[in-house]
């Protein structure tokens, strides 16, 4: 707590505040095959929102709320064999994680 010295008479105190942005979690998805080739057209769903990967095999879900989320990955003719979040393998089943 800082101290202020109020002189005799009228004093005008003005304070400017700004909102603290809520914490966010950005999710960047990259889908490849076993050889590391980016996979186009994989459908990624996170919390009911579905996006398709581009030719670089990537899509993004920005500004999610940190915490628990559900997701899935599918591409016709393919099956999911590995899912890693921040480099750590996570459990999945039938493309759901």
């Amino acid at each position, binding site marked *: 707590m800082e101290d202020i010295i109020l002189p005799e008479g009228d004093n005008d105190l003005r304070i400017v505040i700004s909102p603290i942005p809520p914490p966010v979690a*950005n*999710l960047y998805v990259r*889908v490849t095959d076993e050889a590391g080739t980016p996979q186009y057209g994989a459908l990624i769903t996170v919390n009911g929102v579905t996006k398709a990967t581009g030719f670089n095999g990537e899509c993004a879900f920005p500004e*999610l709320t940190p915490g*628990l989320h559900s997701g899935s990955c599918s591409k016709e003719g393919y*099956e999911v064999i590995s899912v890693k979040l921040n480099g750590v393998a996570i459990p999945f089943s039938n493309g*759901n994680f």
Partner: protein
Amino acid sequence: MRDITLPQGNNALQIVLKPVAVVAGRMGKWSFSVTVAYPEMHREHCEWPNHTLDFDFDLYPSTFFMDLRCYNDSPFEVVAEMVIVGSNANIVHQPSPAFYDPHIKANSSNPFSWCMTLPRTPGDYYFDAVLSFDGVVVDQGRWILRYY
């Protein structure tokens, strides 16, 4: 549905897929060709294992017309999808809708042509193509043309 816990900040989700569909026997002859009529435009390289890529280019003022030829000997319908993007911000990132049919269909007697307009802006042009049979992607590749 399972759950994942996302911490605050940036998170990288890496997913690896493995093909399960076998479409052997469906593939006919699938080819692209590029003939560079524009002297400054050079074919750099292609990333398309196991298939021939040929593009036919004819130059018109400020316009490239590209013939995308697809031949298929099988009775299955071939659907080719092509997306063109550029690494240069001045390059059109998507063909004019008037020239763009995202699902061009062709067969052995009906190779299709596909054209678009690009500005003469130096840079890398990426031609990405996807070939699918009955909705199953069986092949995809990329040509990179470097215009400088």
